[in-house]
């Protein structure tokens, strides 16, 4: 079931993405309402990270398009913020907590520009929001997993965006951090921000999210949590059997067959 909305914050239209021939996202097509906390769930390798990366333009689409507030990403990049997986960077990098959060204040129209006083104030404000203001000068190599995640979140807040895409912000963090983060996300929602969160813990889905995307290479369901978080859709998303789609995917890879007749 795919529930469509008017004036979406995010629209994916027939998005297909392949990795070395094998399709990882197959005709993903949905619209997301603005001002909601949206969960993305699906088994490992179901294309959740790929989806976020392709929305952010980090991975080329094989077909389809992405619209953010009805525009192309390049027109309103500053209104979108991306939080990569914590494990995707080397934390033994010579930088302090403040250094990392300041990265959210990067001016991309002027590469030579230094950070201003205002940038620093905003960064400090964001660190306060994630309760890391006592760790400003701390070396990032000395942070715990939960603290690393908070720093990533603060960097994202510093971008002052309207749409946030977060890749597993709850993975491997302590309970206190998880609570702090979800409270923050709810507060952001009341300010009208749209937040998309890749999530793993099915137990908290109902409590955390208004809207749910259920993904397994194809989009199984998109709709309010109430409507789509049902045993049927869960089974379809996580069901163990190799679906016909997956079999065709393997075949496409094996034969180097194109996914579209025309590019």
């Amino acid at each position: 079931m795919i529930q469509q909305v008017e004036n979406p914050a995010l629209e994916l239209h027939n998005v297909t993405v392949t990795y070395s021939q094998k399709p990882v996202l197959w005709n993903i097509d949905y619209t997301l309402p603005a001002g909601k906390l949206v969960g993305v769930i699906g088994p490992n390798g179901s294309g959740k990270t790929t989806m976020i990366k392709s929305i952010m333009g980090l991975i080329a689409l094989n077909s389809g398009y992405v619209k953010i507030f009805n525009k192309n990403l390049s027109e309103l990049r500053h209104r979108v913020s991306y939080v990569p997986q914590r494990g995707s960077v080397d934390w033994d990098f010579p930088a302090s907590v403040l250094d990392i959060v300041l990265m959210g204040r990067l001016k991309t129209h002027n590469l030579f520009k230094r950070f201003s006083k205002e940038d620093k104030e905003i960064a400090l404000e964001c660190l306060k929001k994630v309760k890391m203001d006592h760790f400003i000068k701390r070396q990032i190599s000395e942070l715990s997993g939960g603290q690393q995640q908070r720093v990533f979140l603060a960097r994202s807040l510093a971008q002052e965006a309207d749409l946030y895409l977060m890749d597993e912000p709850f993975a491997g963090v302590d309970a206190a951090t998880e609570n702090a983060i979800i409270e923050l996300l709810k507060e952001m929602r009341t300010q009208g921000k749209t937040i998309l969160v890749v999530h793993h813990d099915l137990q908290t889905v109902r409590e955390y999210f208004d809207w749910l995307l259920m993904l397994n290479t194809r989009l199984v369901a998109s709709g309010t949590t109430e409507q789509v978080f049902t045993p049927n859709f869960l089974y379809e998303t996580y069901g163990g059997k190799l679906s016909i789609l997956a079999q065709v995917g393997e075949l496409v890879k094996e034969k180097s067959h194109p996914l579209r007749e025309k590019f």
Partner: protein
Amino acid sequence: MIDVQDLIDFFLLRDPNVRWVVLGIMLMSAASAVVGVFAYLRKRALVGDAVSHAILPGVCVAFLVTGIKNPWILLGGAFLSGYFSLWCINLISKHSRIKPDTAIALILSVFYGVGILLLTSIQNSGNANQSGLDKFLFGKAAALVYDDVLVFSFFGVLLILVVMLLFIPFKVMAFDRDFAQSSGLPVNALDTVLSVMTVLAITIGIQTVGVVLMAALLITPAASARYWTHNLRIMVILAAAIGAFSGILGAFVSYEWAKMPTGPWVVTFLSLIAVVSVLFGTHKGVWAKLRQLHRNRLKMLEENILKCFYHLGEQDHSFTIARSLEEIQEKRLFELRQLKKGLKRLTRKKLLLLHADKYALTDQGMEEGKRVTRIHRLWELYLTKHLHLASDHVHEDAEAIEHIITPEIERELEVHLNFPRTDPHQTPIPYK
């Protein structure tokens, strides 16, 4: 022995020839080091090595085509083949099943092989002009002339300037490329700039140290600097300083002893600094680690002695009795030398008092012994309750953990266990 007059002459740069060589080497080493920091942080150290080797065929082809040894032309050839090798590495690792490390090894050996082939055939061609071309192979700083130094200095300054100007974007890219791209940085353009800079640094460095040692000039300063700082800006400055300093020292050795080659000596000094950094660096240096271990051992010894005094006090219902060495040994068998050392330190810290060869706890010492005892017993209880360990399995663990628990965790333990009165062996837990 080193002639003092030579030393003075050298470092005051009195000899104009020396002046040029030293200046050129310093700038070149500093520039390679600065560029190398980003190669190091982006985990591209090996790429630098491959590109250095891949420069040789470019030099040879440039010479074969023009027949002269103009530094600009040779460097142009070097740059092109260096950049081409980089392009090949990326192409292979992106579009084939070959993994990056294999691609690097492949490109390195193929380009270097072709380079040696060309060089040998040029040397055997009888072209009188060719002599000196082999300096690209092993480097020959002493042969630097004014023109070379001009080229060096120009590019050296250029590289350092670019890094200063684009410092923030480079930093963001080195830490988190996806994030950099997602926030709109032109990462591909910046990648190209960094690649061009790396190849340039290698191209100008090669005449001093040669293709084989060039990677050391690029990466060693960065690797050494990382042991001393957590701040990228300081790391860059430090790497530049290490590079420049080794450059001067290398130049001095070959100035003082005419037969000594400059490049290998520069690399030798770089390596020495690297060894010193690994051993004594403040960040993860071996010495810093050993000192930490030593401090831990001392802390454990002292706390164990105080705990022993406290246990004796509990036994006799008095914490002020002075104890002889024998009494302590009877309660807990310390190694005698260690015990004496610990007692001495504790007396100096005023945690123990010495009266006529006997030691007694001061008030402060008593509190400290009580604290360690309390943590030990709390931890034992925590293990039995929350890790479901049998009460005869928890002592060993508590013996070690009691020394590391901070006051904050201690408080958490107390609250979590709801201020228990006794430990799993029914011994009372002493509170403040």
